């Protein structure tokens, strides 16, 4: 087992190195000159050259990549004495557009995205697994139909359309909820909750749809297995059987997939953050797109990739733990 974990972890690190190198190359090989973007209108070539040197864009790409990776562990200082800028470890670069170390920007936006992702995750698992179980138990009855309809409609709703409809209905027409405005959890838990309620539901409804289907099919499949048939035949109480055996067995693949979805969301809920004006990683990225702020784009891509790879690895290890056949492969 230990060997398996080790192997998976090494693979994850290699994967991350490849992804980071790839990201770095893509963004730095773009037609947009990163140095030219450091200074606005009326910029003279000399300033661009000075900044190019200061930020290291004049050096070969491989060397730049080296300093970038080194900066993550040791921090990085740009420029010579006088007007130098220091970004402490873990440094993910310096945004000339925002005049801030990228790490600082990510650190301030990540909690927002994490808040969105966490709440949405809890909700969608609740709705998805709940409705899915109901549908499976009442197979063919109206509950099953409603759950199935919900799942098909949910999957078909574009996030931005549902978000806009929610704002119109709950905020503008009926005024049940206040205009969403993000407040930190530690500042005011109630306002934090109120601001995130709609985004949570939007994401939950859209994602839950898939989970309804998975849970339903998963449970039905498990109930077909020998041990369950045997249990039913032996006259075990149905409820206990379902809760203790069926659900547990059916949920394992679902939880692992949920882990991946959660990781994806942590990388930035682009559309949701944009519609509800939540200052998270997604909005940071979108603003960086508009401003062609390459250091931020490289960093957010990498951070999101880290989440995905880590989640993947954890899920794999978990799977290996639960199912010895995977380890052997």
């Amino acid at each position, binding site marked *: 087992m230990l060997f398996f974990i080790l192997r998976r972890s090494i693979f994850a690190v290699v994967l991350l190195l490849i992804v980071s190198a790839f990201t770095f190359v893509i963004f730095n090989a773009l037609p947009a000159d990163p140095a030219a973007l450091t200074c606005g*209108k*009326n910029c*003279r070539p*000399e*300033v661009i050259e*000075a900044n190019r040197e200061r930020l290291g864009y004049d050096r070969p790409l491989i060397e730049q990549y080296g300093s970038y990776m080194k900066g993550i562990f040791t921090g990085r200082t740009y420029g010579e004495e006088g*007007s130098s800028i220091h970004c402490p470890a873990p440094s993910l670069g310096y945004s000339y557009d925002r*005049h801030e170390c990228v790490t600082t920007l990510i650190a301030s936006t990540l909690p927002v995205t994490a808040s969105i992702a966490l709440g949405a995750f809890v909700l969608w698992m609740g709705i998805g697994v709940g409705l899915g179980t109901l549908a499976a138990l009442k197979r063919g009855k109206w509950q099953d139909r409603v759950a199935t309809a919900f799942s098909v409609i949910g999957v078909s709703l574009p996030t931005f359309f549902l978000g806009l409809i929610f704002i119109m209905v709950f905020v503008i027409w009926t005024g049940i909820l206040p205009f969403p405005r993000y407040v930190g959890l530690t500042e005011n838990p109630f306002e934090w909750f109120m601001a995130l309620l709609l985004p949570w539901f939007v994401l939950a409804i859209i994602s839950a749809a898939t989970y309804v289907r998975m849970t339903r099919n998963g449970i039905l499949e498990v109930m077909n297995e020998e041990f369950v048939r045997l249990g039913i035949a032996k006259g075990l109480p149905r409820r206990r059987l379902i809760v203790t055996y069926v659900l547990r067995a059916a949920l394992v693949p679902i939880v692992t997939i949920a882990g991946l979805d959660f990781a994806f969301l942590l990388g930035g809920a682009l559309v949701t953050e944009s519609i509800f004006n939540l200052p998270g990683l997604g909005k940071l990225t979108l603003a960086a797109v*508009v401003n062609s702020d390459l250091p931020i784009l490289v960093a957010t891509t990498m951070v999101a990739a880290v989440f995905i790879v880590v989640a993947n690895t954890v899920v794999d290890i978990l799977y290996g733990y639960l199912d010895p056949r995977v380890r052997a492969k």
Partner: protein
Amino acid sequence: MKMRSKVLAVVALVGLVAGACGGSGDGAQSGEESGGLSATFDGVKDGGTLYVLTNAEGASTLDPQRVYTGAELGAWGSTFTRTLTSYKPVAGKDGTSLVADMATDLGTASDDLKTWSFTLRDGITWQDGSEVTCADVAYGVSRTFGSEVTAFDGPQYAVSYLDIPEGDYDNLTAYPGPWLATEDEQALFDEAVSCDGKTITFKLKVPVADFNFTVSLLAFAPVPEAQDTADQYGLMPFSNGPFKVETYEEGKELVLVRNESWNADSDEVRSPKVDKIVWQFGLDETVIDERMLADSGDDKNAIVYGGILPENLQTVFGDDTLKERRTDGFDGFVTYTMLNVKTVSCLEVRQAIWLAIDREALRTAAGGPFTGEFATSFVAPLLTTDYAPAKLLDGLNADGKSNVEAATAKMEEAKEKCPEVYAKATEDGLRFDHPDTDTWKKYMAIWIDTLGAAGIKIIDNPIESSKYYATINGDQGDLMRAGWAADWANASTVLPELFGKGGGFNYHNTEEDPAFADFQAKVDEAKLETDRTAQSKLWKELNQYVIDQVWSIPGSATKAQNIVGSNVRGAYQWLPFGWYNLGDLGLAG
């Protein structure tokens, strides 16, 4: 400077002062509305928190040497950055008169107008209680030169006026700014800007009659060298005004609190009322409008930076219960479509474009008459001294609609006179550069449709909004959109900048036109003219000249509408900056 990022210093404005004389009665009509009760100080109490709601992700910068956005210049100046001179904090025409701020008077000029000196008042302090010295002012001014930090973001008057030898640095002088200067180089600057006790003296290389207006720009504000964090200074500047920056986080908020070290006796300009000013960034524009209309809770104490969405004008100006808290008036900007004289070198083609375009449709797409009046000059109507409606092109419809016949006739002429440009316009197409926004998608539909009727082909070239001016600075299309307002009440900050040699905002490539020499000669003459009446006559003639050459097509003299929360008082339009006087706002109730 681009739209919404230029100081607007303007004199003599009858319409706006006259107040709410239009706009009543049947539905919503654009007239001048000055804000009713909210513009007064009735019932104002000391204290409270004022909120500023904005769609912007942050301030452009808080660094005095880098800021160049009209509203921000006024906002930072009235709260945490004092300057030698500033504008009178009152509504209307008086608001554009200059008053002494940190200086004891409006400055003393030598006979040749090449030496100006100002003396600092006693008792002006920084937020840590230390005294604001003459050296701080000189140091602040020197920062403009350090382009590796200030990046030419702010106005460049220090560079173009101060008597420092020419040189090879980025700013084309021999002085690279305080961060990189050697002792010898610093001596060059200290020669041009010198201190004698509390008196600062500026030596200029050209005579400047209104240099005391120039020093009211925040680019001439003091910065204490010990507190200078170079390129980070814009995030946390040091205050010498009644407010100071408590926290500033882009995408989130800027919190200004009262500066306890500010000495009211040293300041005859500012009279702060609220305890705290909180800017909320990154709000959705539609949400801002909804909150302002709902006027509940803290939003009663809120103002908006950015104005009302055109989509909501009908709602806001159709409802007379909002009369006491809404404003409507010219904002001092003129929008126009620049023609690249180098690539569209044929006068007839340029005339045809002007005749063919449906200005009425463009204005309707923007939101109708509330968004502005058809411009007849590149000088805004607010700048009354230099403004005169020009005689426009023959055949142009007064109602702004296309004159396809006249346009087609002009194109026929062009076919004979300049077949190359004609072929380009009809076959290859003319490239139209514009910022990539939803509204511009509609403008382009109109441009393509109406010019197409006259046989002119348009190639759409949207550019990311934030990079728009930087992009066309390097690569100009055949047509380009722009907007401009004066730096202060003189067309010298308009026509030469837009069309003259070395003009900071001249993307027309006018030098390529044979008609340019005459224009430039007259510009030089006007600049040196010290008699203001004679000078304004020259400006009017020059404006007519540009209109006749169709180097650019004037669009609208734009108007702005705004709304404040019901508790807000003192929300008068401060003309020099086209927004409220932030530091002067108070709350009632």
